[in-house]
């Protein structure tokens, strides 16, 4: 992971209150108001976040083909409720680095995205062995095909020899079988960040091993095609 100190975030440092755009300032003042203005602002905030949650649920509704419109809207409502609570809890930490609405939206998008992914996987087992090794293109030419097969053999060998059992489980689930990171985290009773860190470390080990046996960086350059 990158060290926070290495991040160049000079251009997004906390904006002085006087530099906040009018709309963001208005949201902050209303949510900090001790009176009835705050109640109205919370209702407006919930409506804003419900719109964002519905937007995300609609984008990913193909993941839930068995859900009808009412069930999808229920998911969005719950996500908006959770996001509203999260925003109210963190409103004092809003630093004005972005518009208030963008900052608030991200909570609704995240809660809705997680809800859809979890619903899509709720009755499915997590596959920890590869259903298929998707390394060989059906449309590759003979030379490319031979290269892909050679790489596939080296990669499978590296997965089986240099990774710990936990790293292998996480890598196969996330990167081969495409299980969502938060779904796997929930099943393993850990955090999304911890699971991704395991994946990150496993990837680094695999790259190191492939480099040691002569496959990188040539292959790595083509991965950016």
């Amino acid at each position, binding site marked *: 992971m990158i060290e926070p100190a290495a991040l160049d975030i000079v251009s997004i440092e906390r904006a002085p209150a006087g530099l906040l755009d009018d709309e963001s300032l208005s949201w902050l003042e209303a949510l900090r108001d001790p009176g009835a203005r705050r109640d109205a602002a919370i209702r407006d905030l919930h409506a804003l976040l419900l719109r964002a949650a519905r937007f*995300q649920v609609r984008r990913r509704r193909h993941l839930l083909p068995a859900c009808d419109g009412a069930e999808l809207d229920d998911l969005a409502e719950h996500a908006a409720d959770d996001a509203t609570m999260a925003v109210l809890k963190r409103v004092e930490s809003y630093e004005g680095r972005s518009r208030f609405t963008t900052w608030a939206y991200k909570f609704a998008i995240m809660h809705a995205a997680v809800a859809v992914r979890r619903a899509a996987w709720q009755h499915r087992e997590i596959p920890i062995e590869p259903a298929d090794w998707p390394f060989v*293109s059906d449309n590759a030419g003979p030379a490319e095909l031979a290269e892909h097969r050679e790489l596939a053999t080296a990669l499978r060998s590296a997965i089986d020899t240099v990774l710990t059992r936990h790293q292998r489980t996480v890598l196969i689930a996330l990167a081969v079988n495409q299980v969502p990171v938060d779904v796997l985290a929930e099943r393993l009773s850990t955090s999304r960040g911890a699971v991704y860190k395991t994946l*990150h470390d496993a*990837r680094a080990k695999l790259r190191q091993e492939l480099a040691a046996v002569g496959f990188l960086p040539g292959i790595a350059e083509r991965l950016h095609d």
Partner: protein
Amino acid sequence: MTDTPRALRRILGPGEQELSCEECFELLDSYVDLEAAGVDAGQAMPGMWPHLLGCPACADEHDALLELVRDDERSR
């Protein structure tokens, strides 16, 4: 049909210094506002784009937030 580079990218990741999921969520709104404003967000926040290449969940949330913000911009 198998897309070998994509399959390999999923396994080997971006191969660059990248943010964690927590850092990504923390900075996502700033990054998206910079993108929506046409600023080089990758330059301002190194590590974000490699993380989005390596983490499909964060990438999906990024794409959704950017779409939503651009929708707002169009309706302002």
